[in-house]
């Protein structure tokens, strides 16, 4: 019983001061990879909220803008490796769009550490853990989103 309590403590939900990260996970690879990380009991920071999409190619740049607009501190997109896309070439599209949206946001003054695109396959529970851990550290180093502050001032 005590052990359980201790565990619950470790994974307590993030407080208001903690960074909040939104992860778009592709149904066929990365979501299964996250599932594998879960059943393998790999620990990773609880700051991530994930959204399952059928393919990363369905992620409109508007979604990323909306996430930042709502005060999210970092956005992760994870999908199948290039060549492994369930729909053929959806992830090529993601990669092409991602570069435009990332450079646009950096040009606006958003920290480049807040956006990341990763390929995580269904067999890579370990990699999923690593990606979430390093990305959370990255975003923590960048701090809370400046958009939240700028908007509060307004």
């Amino acid at each position, binding site marked *: 019983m005590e052990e359980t309590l201790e565990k619950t403590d470790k994974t307590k939900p993030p407080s208001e001061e903690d960074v909040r990260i939104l992860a778009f996970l592709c149904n066929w690879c990365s979501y299964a990879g996250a599932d594998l990380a879960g059943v393998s009991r790999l620990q990773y920071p609880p700051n991530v909220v994930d959204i399952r999409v059928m393919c990363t190619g369905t992620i409109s740049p508007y979604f990323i803008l909306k996430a930042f607009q709502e005060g999210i501190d970092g956005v992760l997109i994870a999908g199948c490796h290039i060549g492994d896309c369930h729909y053929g*070439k959806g992830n090529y599209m993601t990669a092409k769009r991602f570069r435009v949206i990332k450079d646009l946001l950096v040009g606006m003054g958003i920290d*480049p550490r807040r956006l990341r695109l990763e390929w995580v396959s269904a067999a890579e529970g370990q990699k999923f853990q690593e990606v979430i851990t390093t990305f959370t550290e990255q975003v923590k180093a960048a701090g809370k989103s400046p958009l939240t502050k700028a908007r509060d001032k307004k």
Partner: protein
Amino acid sequence: MKDELVKAIKEALDTGKASAAVILTEKDGELMPRIITDAKDSALDSIYTGDRRYPMASFAMMLVPVIEGNLALPVRECDRRMLVELKKHNQVDTDRLVLLGIPCSQEVADACGCDHPFTANGISVSPATAKPAEPSPPPETVSEDSEERLAFWMDAFSRCTKCMGCRNVCPMCFCNDCALDNLDYVSVDSKPPDIPIFHLIRAIDMSDRCVDCGMCEAICPAEIPLRQLYRQARAIVKEAYGYEPGISDEKSPIEMLGEPAELAGMQEGSRTE
């Protein structure tokens, strides 16, 4: 210039090359577009051929589907480039357009900061004389410091009155279902609108469509440097994919589904702090 344009319109209507023409007339200092179907129409006497611009490409989109025959349309080079883009997006049948090229004067080219005042292409009604304007130096407002950049843009965006002028004047903003009207992205009850998403939605869409005509910035009552924003977006696409809108019939690399691409550096983007 005026005589040549009138002559070209009359010729197009008389020979049956076109069944209708759009002309601009001026009344009390306001530009008024008119549709004429007859070469003897008296509106041709008050035709406006001055330096002010008007989104002529929008008329092509509106009128071509509803008229019989072809439409004669006086265009500047920026209008022609828009039509090239609109054709790629299946918005207008350019085969049914009779383009009458109006060469811009040097004053207009300089005022617009235009790098392509006129490339004749055999449609010009009179010889083009203007040279490309001197490339403007990068604005001082582009700071190396990300916090200063964000402060600059947020300050500019916060002046926005959500008049929708930038969207409405832009012929490239042709979507029937506009994301700026979508309450999930932009709420109705705030002024300024939800920034920066309101402006960035348009910026991301303009990255592979904008032909840099500058009418959005000219019309903006809040003087937001929109052109600079869209130029930044265009520069990203040009640098990453070597694609520039309005130049050729080649389609945008971003909108093509699944074409394999050189993916080096794409996960990281080119800009780092």
